[in-house]
Each structure stands twice: as structure tokens, then as C-alpha cells.
């Protein structure tokens, strides 16, 4: 019960912040740009291109992940609310586990910007009405 509520509160608290969505938007935009650039030869979703874009965008995410996790870990001290929290009857496992899981899920969702970009990239490069013909032609190169 307490674990679930600590997780829920932390997740909702950070999900409501503009910063979290900004991270998602930046990753999405960068990944989309990389996909578009690497896809100019038609190799939009080749395994190599996807891996390359994921690694490059992941390098950017490495700068964002600590902000999300750090906020979850250090906010009580930063806001000086820790005496109220630490005097509450909660176990270390519930407190740390709930916070960690929330930060983990938030980071996973931010990182999900990478695979999501493949959809608009494919559609932007393969516009109807020649979608099937153009794509099949390009992908067969």
C-alpha cells in the first residue's frame, strides 16, 4: 500500500512537471532529426540505422536520466521536507523502492521517444499516394 502510493505520488509529481515532457520532446526531436538524416538513402529502419540513432540519442538521454532519478532521490532534502518524511512510519524498502521504481518508469517512458520517432519518420519519407510503391522500392535498394 505504502510502496504503491510512494510510487504513484512520485510518478505523478514528476509527470506533471514541464521538465519531464521537455526531456521527452527533446529526445523525440533529436531522434526524429537523426532518423530523417540517416534515412535519406532510404534505409530508414535498417537495424544499423536504428541502432546508431538509438546510441546517439541515448548519449543525450544520459544527461537527462540523472535529473529525473536525482529529483526522486534528493527532493526531500532539497526542499527540506525530510524531517516530516523520515519521522513517518515507512520502511526503507517502501520509500527507496517506490522512488526508484517511479524514476525508472519515468526514464523508460522518456526513452520511449526513440522508438516512437520511427513512425513519423517512415510516414514523412514515404508519403501517400505512392507510399507502398516508394517504400518498397526504397527498401529494396
Amino acid at each position, binding site marked *: *500500500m505504502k510502496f504503491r502510493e510512494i510510487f504513484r505520488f512520485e510518478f505523478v*509529481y514528476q509527470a*506533471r512537471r514541464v521538465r519531464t515532457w521537455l526531456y521527452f520532446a527533446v529526445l523525440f526531436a533529436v531522434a526524429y532529426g537523426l532518423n530523417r538524416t540517416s534515412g535519406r538513402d532510404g534505409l530508414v529502419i535498417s537495424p544499423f540505422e536504428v541502432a546508431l540513432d538509438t546510441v546517439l540519442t541515448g548519449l543525450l538521454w544520459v544527461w537527462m536520466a540523472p535529473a529525473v532519478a536525482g529529483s526522486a532521490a534528493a527532493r526531500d532534502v532539497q526542499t527540506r*521536507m525530510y524531517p*516530516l518524511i523520515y519521522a513517518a*512510519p515507512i520502511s526503507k524498502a517502501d520509500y527507496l523502492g517506490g522512488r526508484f521504481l517511479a524514476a525508472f518508469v519515468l526514464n523508460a517512458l522518456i526513452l520511449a521517444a526513440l522508438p516512437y520517432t520511427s513512425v513519423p519518420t517512415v510516414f514523412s519519407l514515404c508519403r501517400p499516394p505512392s507510399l507502398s510503391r516508394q517504400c518498397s522500392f526504397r527498401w529494396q535498394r
Partner: protein
Amino acid sequence: MTLQIRGISKTYPNGVQALKDVALTIPKGMYGLLGPNGAGKSTLMRILATLQEPDGGSVQLGEIDVLKQKDEVRQTLGYLPQEFGVYPKVNAEELLDYFAVLKGVGSRRARQGVVESLLRKTNLWDVREQKLSGYSGGMRQRFGVAVALLGNPKLMIVDEPTAGLDPAERVRFLNLLSELGEASVVLLSTHIVEDVSELCTRMAIIDKGEILLEAEPLRAIDELQGRIWSCEVSREAQDDLERGHAVISTKLYAGRTVAHVYCDSTPGPAFEPAKPDLEDVYFSAVTGRIGRRREHQRPEGRP
């Protein structure tokens, strides 16, 4: 339920001895812990709130060993620290609901009832949807009180609660505390003498980590009857007065300096008998005219 503190000592790594063999028995009701800044009050409060370990001693709340059974204590503890912050991006209702979960108020319906009742009691109901970052110091303090009151605590520890409150906020806050004191052990730590004189049925005076006096405020005041004398004094004559008499305090009154002197009989023609109050008790204890510090001092050279 009684809170028994026995032989609590605490020395910080920098060598400062914050508490020296503190022993107190605190019954149900309002109990004031009075002392100057840096006396060790907050250290004692943090130890009682299970946030800090003492070097030695024991603390017993009824059947609960406070130093060993921390989870049990926290189930029944309300703690309002001297300084605390809140998450700025949530409103009071959400954060209080979160604390209610942490305190073990299980069902959503029960939480809603508790949260509403506490927000109304602390006069925050009308601003419950306002972000906490927009709260004034007094409102934040009242929010802290609401958090501390969650779960009907049997032990309530409030550390310097009225510092920074305006007079109206202070009165409202003290009324809230006195209501709580009817059913729980409430330990009020403060350096404001009026807080103790208005609220507490028992009190202790602490300075430099030592309990100097444990008493009932009214009885302690009674015991000073006929021993406190006052006189107006100029700034130039102040040093002479302090050399010749047991001055316990000097303060400005309508622009003039008035000195209070402790003496068993009249110290001189310039002095008038003063009606003692708790402030005189406090200064008499801190300057070693009454209480344990007097017992420790040698009689030579004493007025």
C-alpha cells in the same frame, strides 16, 4: 502514557556537547522545554522523534523503547520540526493525503475525511488547492501542524513552532496545540517564554545541554515572590550594577533600561519589588540564581 528520558547525552563529531545527561519525566499534557538558541533543544527533539541517535541513555514512551522500537514510536508520533519545507509543486490537499497514506490511514474514504477535518482545523481548507510554493510562512507552519496531527498521535513533538508567526497565527496555533494536549503527551520546545507561560502545565529550562530546572510554571513563579527587584538604570551605570548585584536581566521599557535583580532581601533604596513572571524564572535559572546551575556553583562570591 508518560515519556521518560533518562541520561541522554549527545556529542557531535566537532566536539560540541549538545546534551549532558538529560533526564526528564513528561506526563500527558503540554510540557514546555525552554532554552536559548543553541541550548540543545532541537537535538533532544530530533532524538525523541527518532531522527538522531544519542550517545547514551534511554527514552521510554509508556511500554515503547523509543531508541529501539522506532517503527512503533513513529506510528504514534506527531513531529513538527523547527525548520522544514514542502514540495512546491503540489497543493495542500494532495500532500496531506500522501502523508496520511504514509501514516497508515488506509482507505481513500477515511483519508478524505481526515484530510478535510485537519485542513479545516488548521484553517487551510479555503486554500487547499493552492500550490504550497505560494504559502506564507504561517500557512506552511499550519500545514506542518496538520501533518503532525495525522493519525491522532500519542506523542507530539513541536520544535520552536511559533517562531516567525504573526500574533494572530500564533494564537490560533497555540489554541490548536492546547486542544491536542488534552489527550496526548505534547512536548513544546521554544525560546519564547510566553508560549510556555500561556500553555504549559509543566516545564523544563535547558541551557548548554543541561536541564537547569524542572518545575510547574506557576509554582516556580510563586517561589520567586519577594526575590525579584527592579530599578531603572542608565547605560553608563549598567556595568556597576552588574558588578554589585545579581542582575538576571536588563530590558528596555518605553525607551528606558530596566534591570531585574535577584536578591532574598532588598538590594538597596533604588530598587522596587517586582512581580515575578516566567521570564524572571527563566533568567534566574540561566544565570544560576535558582535550579541546578546554582547547586553546581560554589557559594563564594555569590550575592
